[in-house]
C-alpha cells in the first residue's frame, strides 16, 4: 500500500500543500527460518502431515510474535482439516475480513485465527481473493462455529463462501444493498446541524491520514 500526502480527506483535494510526502507500507514478504518459539514446530509438523505444503502455503509471515500462514483458497479446507486433526488446532476463533483496495488481484483477505487447546498455541490463516472473483470455500464442515462468522464476512465484505449451508445477511437487514465494511462504501453519516453551521460526517471532514 502507498499513500500520497499527509493531510486531507482521503480521495478529495489535499488542502495542506504537503502532497510531496509518499509513505509506503511494505506488504511483508515471507519470513525466514528460524521463526522462533513454537512456530518452527508448527511449520515442521504441517510440512510432515501435509506433503503438498509448498503448493498450498504461499507465504509464512512471523510478525510481532504471531505466525500467519497465507493459504491458497483451493487448499483451504484440506489445510484446515490437517491443522485440526493432526496439529490439534481444535478451535477457530472466527473469520475476519479485510479489504485492501490498492492490492490489485488480492483485494479481499479473510483471516482465521486458530487456537490449540491441547498445545496452548495460536496461529493464523490468511486467504486472499480478488474482488472480481470473491469466492472462498467454506470451513463450516471443519469448524462449525464459523457459520455465523462467514455470514458476517459475506454481509460486510461480499466474500461468497462456497459450500456454506445458508449464506445470508446476518447483521444488516435482509434486503440491504451493498457491503458496508468495504473501503469503497461510504460511512453514511449525515451532517450535524448547529445554529448557522453544519459539521460534516467523519468521512468527509478534513483530517490527518
Amino acid at each position, binding site marked *: 500500500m502507498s499513500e500520497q500526502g499527509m493531510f486531507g480527506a482521503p480521495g478529495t483535494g489535499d488542502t495542506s500543500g504537503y502532497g510531496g510526502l509518499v509513505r509506503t507500507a511494505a506488504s511483508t514478504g515471507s519470513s525466514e527460518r528460524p521463526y522462533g518459539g513454537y512456530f518452527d514446530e508448527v511449520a515442521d509438523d504441517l510440512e510432515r502431515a501435509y506433503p503438498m505444503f509448498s503448493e498450498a502455503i504461499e507465504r509464512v509471515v512471523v510478525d510481532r510474535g504471531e505466525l500467519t500462514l497465507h493459504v491458497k483458497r483451493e487448499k483451504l479446507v484440506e489445510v484446515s482439516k490437517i491443522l485440526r486433526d493432526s496439529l490439534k488446532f481444535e478451535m477457530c476463533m472466527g473469520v475476519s475480513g479485510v479489504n485492501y483496495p490498492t492490492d490489485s488481484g488480492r483485494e479481499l483477505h479473510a483471516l482465521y485465527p486458530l487456537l490449540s487447546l491441547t498445545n496452548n498455541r495460536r496461529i493464523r490463516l490468511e486467504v486472499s481473493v480478488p474482488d472480481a472473483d470473491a469466492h472462498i470455500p467454506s470451513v463450516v464442515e471443519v469448524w462449525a462455529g464459523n457459520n455465523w462468522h462467514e455470514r458476517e464476512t459475506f454481509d460486510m465484505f461480499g466474500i461468497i463462501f462456497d459450500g456454506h449451508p445458508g449464506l445470508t445477511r446476518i447483521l444488516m437487514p*435482509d434486503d440491504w444493498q451493498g457491503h458496508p465494511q468495504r473501503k469503497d462504501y461510504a460511512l453514511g453519516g449525515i451532517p450535524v446541524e448547529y445554529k448557522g453551521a453544519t459539521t460534516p460526517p467523519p468521512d468527509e471532514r478534513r483530517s*490527518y491520514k
Partner: protein
Amino acid sequence: MTTFDPYAPSRDTTEGTVYSVTGGDWDSLVQEIGSTKEERVVVNMGPQHPSTHGVLRLVLELEGETVTEARAGIGYLHTGIEKNMEYRSWTQGTTFVTRMDYLAPLFNETAYCLAVEKLLGITQDVPERASVIRVMMMELNRISSHMVALGTGALELGAISPMFFAFREREIVLDIFEMISGLRMNMAYVRPGGVAQDLPAGAIAKIRDAVKLMRKNFKDNTTLLVGNSIWMKRTQGIGYLDLAGCTTLGITGPVLRSTGLPWDLRKMQPYCGYENYNFDVITADTCDVYGRFLIRMNELEQSLRIVEQALDKLEKLEGAPVMVADKKIAWPAQLAMGGDGLGNSLNHIREIMGTSMESLIHHFKLVTEGFHVPAGQVYVAIESPRGELGAHVASDGGTKPYRMHFREPSFNNLQATSAMSEGGMVADIIGAVASIDPVMGGVDR
C-alpha cells in the same frame, strides 16, 4: 447458494428483491408447514421480548411444548462500530470499543489497547502500576457483569429477588468506577499506553471496604439459589453442551468451563501481569445451566481475591506513573477537578503554555493528529466474563486503524442456542440463553 428459506421469503419489486423484515408471510408459511402433515407451530420470540437478553430474535418451531428447531436472528443492534473506528484516531477508538459489550466495557478497552500496544511494540514499556490498575478494574467489571448475568438470568426464570440483590452489588461496583474514572459505564478509561488517570486519594481504602461489603452480600444470592430445589429443577440437565460441541462451535468462557476443561486465558496465556496473581480457575462437570451458574457465582469470589492482591500491589507502587513514558504516544493531559468540572489541570496548562514548547507540540499533535502506529496486524485475546474476547487490529502506518475486528465471545456462544434448545421445552430455551449470557451489543457490534 441459498435455497428457499420459509423464514425470509422475498418478493421481486421494481426496485429489486425485497425481503419481509417481520419474518414472513404467515399464510405461505403455514401452508408450507401444513404440507408436512404434522402439528407444528412456528413462534417468533421477537427482538422485543422481556426474556431474551436484549434484542435477540428466536424463531422456534414447536411441536406441542417441545422445540424441534430453534434459530437465532441477530443484527438488531448493529452499529457499524468497526467501520466507524476507521475514521477516528487510535485513542478515540477506545470510546467506540467500550460500547460494544456494554456490560464489560473495560474488557473491550483493554483488548483493544493491548492490541494497539502490541502493534506499537511498547507492551513491555507499559508501567506496572497501569497494568495493576487495569487488572483491578477488569476484575471489578467481571463482578458487575456476572451480577447482571445472574440477576437477569434469575429474573427470566421467574426469581425476582436475586435481581435486586445482584443490582445492589452492581451499584457498589459502579460507585467505585465512578470514583476512579468519572463514569459508571462506558468509561473509556484504558488508553493505549496505560490508563487515563491515576486513582484518586483514598480510593484504595474505599475499595477495600467495598470488597468486604460485597463478600458479605454475595451470601444473599448464594443462600437463595444454590441448593434451592426449584432452581435446581429449572436448571439441572438443561442446555447441555459437551466438550466436543464447545470446541467445534468455538465456545469459550463459563460455557466451556462447565464441561470440565479448565481453560482460562488468564492462566494459559497471561496478559497484563496475570501470572503474578493467585486465583483458581472454576470448573464444573455437568455441562448444564446449573453448572454455569455455579461457575459464575464462584468466579465472583476469585475476582475479589485478585482485587485484594491488586490493592496490595498498588499500595507498594504509590506514585508510579500510569502512562507509558514515551511522550510521542502517551496521552498528554493530566486531568484534575477545576471550577467547571474535570479538565486539564492548571499545572499542565501552565507547563504547556509557559515553559515547555515540546509539551505544547506533543499535546497539540497527539490530540489533533494522534500517534502513528507501524504497519502490521495483530490478534490479541483476553478472558472476558463471557469467554475469549479477541481484537484483530490491522494498521497501515497511519493515525487511524485500517481495520478493527472484534471476535466477541457472545457471537460464537449464541450459535449454541440451537444445539442447546432443540429437543427440549420452550421454557428451557430461556434458561439456556441466560446461561450463555449473550450481550447483543457485542454480538452485533
